[in-house]
C-alpha cells in the first residue's frame, strides 16, 4: 500500500482525479484537466499558515473574554455582560441545559480546539509515528466542531435585535463579540489550512 505522493501522483484537491505529478517541473502550478483546480500534492505552506491562524485565534480569544460581549440596560440601568457572566446568569435562572450548551460552545470548544490544533501541528513537526488514526479522528472532530462556536456571536446579535424595547429593556452588542467572532474564524482557518495527509507522511 502506497500513497499517491509516493507513486509520483497527485489527487486533485477538488474533484479527486489522479494525475501524474509534474509539480516540480513547472513554475505555474498545473491545473486539473477535469475541473481546472490548481493541483498540489499537499496544501502549500500548510504548517506555517495553520500556526499563524492558530496564534491569531488565541490572541483574539483574550479580548473576547475581557471585553463585554453585550450591554444589557433594564429600566435605565446599564450592565456589561462577559461570556462567563452570561453563563452564571443562565445558572441562576436554572436553565442548566442551555448553560451547558453555552459553556461548551464558548469555553470548552475554543480552548480544546486551540490545544487540538497545536498538538496536531507539533505531532507533525516532530514526526510522531504513533496514533495516526486517532490524530486523524481528532482532526475531523476539530474541523467539524469549530464552526459551532459562532453560536455566541449569533445569540448576541439576535438579542440585540430583539430586545429593543425603549424605556424597558435594551441590549447592545459589545466589542467582545467581535473579538470572539474573530477568534472562531481564525481557528477555523487554522484547521482548514492544516493538511491531514501530513499526519501520515
Amino acid at each position, binding site marked *: *500500500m*502506497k*500513497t*499517491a505522493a509516493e*507513486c509520483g501522483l497527485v*489527487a486533485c*484537491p*477538488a*474533484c*479527486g*482525479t*489522479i*494525475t*501524474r505529478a509534474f509539480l516540480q517541473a513547472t513554475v505555474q502550478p498545473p*491545473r486539473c*484537466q*477535469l*475541473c*481546472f*483546480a490548481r493541483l498540489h500534492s499537499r496544501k502549500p505552506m500548510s504548517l506555517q499558515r495553520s500556526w499563524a491562524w492558530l496564534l491569531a485565534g488565541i490572541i483574539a480569544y483574550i479580548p473576547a473574554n475581557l471585553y463585554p460581549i453585550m450591554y444589557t440596560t433594564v429600566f435605565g440601568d446599564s450592565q456589561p455582560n462577559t461570556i462567563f457572566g452570561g453563563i452564571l*446568569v*443562565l445558572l441562576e*435562572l436554572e*436553565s442548566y441545559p*442551555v448553560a451547558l*450548551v*453555552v459553556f461548551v460552545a464558548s469555553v470548552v470548544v475554543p480552548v480544546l480546539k486551540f490545544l487540538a490544533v497545536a498538538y496536531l501541528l507539533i505531532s507533525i513537526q516532530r514526526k510522531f509515528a504513533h496514533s495516526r*488514526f486517532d490524530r*486523524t479522528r481528532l482532526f475531523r472532530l476539530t*474541523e467539524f466542531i469549530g*464552526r*459551532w462556536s*459562532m*453560536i455566541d*456571536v*449569533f*445569540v448576541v*446579535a*439576535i*438579542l*440585540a*435585535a*430583539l*430586545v*429593543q*424595547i425603549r424605556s*424597558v*429593556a435594551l441590549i447592545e*452588542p459589545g*466589542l467582545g*463579540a*467581535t473579538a470572539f*467572532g474573530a477568534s472562531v474564524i481564525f481557528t*477555523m482557518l487554522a484547521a*482548514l489550512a492544516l493538511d*491531514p*495527509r501530513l*499526519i*501520515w*507522511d
Partner: protein
Amino acid sequence: MTSAYSDNANFKTRRYAETVLLSLVACHECDLLHEKLELRQGEVARCVRCNAFLYSNKPNSIDRALAVTLAALIMFVVANAFPFLAISVSGNSQSISIVSAVFALSDNGMWLLGLLCFSFILFIPLLRVVGLLYILLPLRFSSRLPGLELVFRGIVTMSPWSMMEIYLLGAVVALVKLASMANIELGLSFWAFALLNLLSALAAQMVDTHTLWEFMSQSRGGRKSIIDGGSHR
C-alpha cells in the same frame, strides 16, 4: 491493493498512465491509493487506513436532490419574507426578521462582524442553493451550463462558512435566555428557516461531492474522454 502501480517506471506512455489513473482514488485525508471498485447501489467506500469517506454509488439521485434544492430555495424566500421572532414585555412588543440581527450589529458600529454574519447566515447559504440549482437543473436534462466545475468548487469551498444551522440553534438559545422575562412568539419565518435547514442537509446527503463530480464528468462524456481529448488550460 495497489502494488502494481507503485513503481514510477510502470508508466511507459502518457496514454497508459492516464488509463490507469482513472481506476485509482486517493484518500483525501491520508493520501493512500485505492483501486476503484464497482459498488452496489447505496454502498459506500471508505479508506482502509483512516476510514475517511472515499466514494459512493447513488444512481438517480439527481431528481431527488433537485426537488429538495428547489424546495430549499422556496423556503429561503419564505424565511426572509415573514417575522422570525417576536417578544412582548408589558404591552410593548418587538418583532424581527432573520436579517435584523445583522443590522443590530452594523447599527452599533460593528459593521465588519455584521457583514460576516450576513455572509454566514444569508449570502453564502443562498449562493450554495442557487449554485446547486445551476448545476443540477441542466444535469437533470443531460446538459450543462458554462463554468459548472468552477461553480461547484466554489460551493465546496464555501460550505464550512454556511452557518444556518448554528444560527437556528442561536435563536433557540436567545429565546431561552428571554423566556423568563418576556412573552415569546415564533414567527412563520422561524419554521421556514428550520425547514430550510432540514432540506439543505437532505440535499447534501443525496448528492455527495463525489457523486456530483461523477455526474458532471459524465455530462462531458465521462472522465476518460475529457482527459483523452482535453487540453491543459
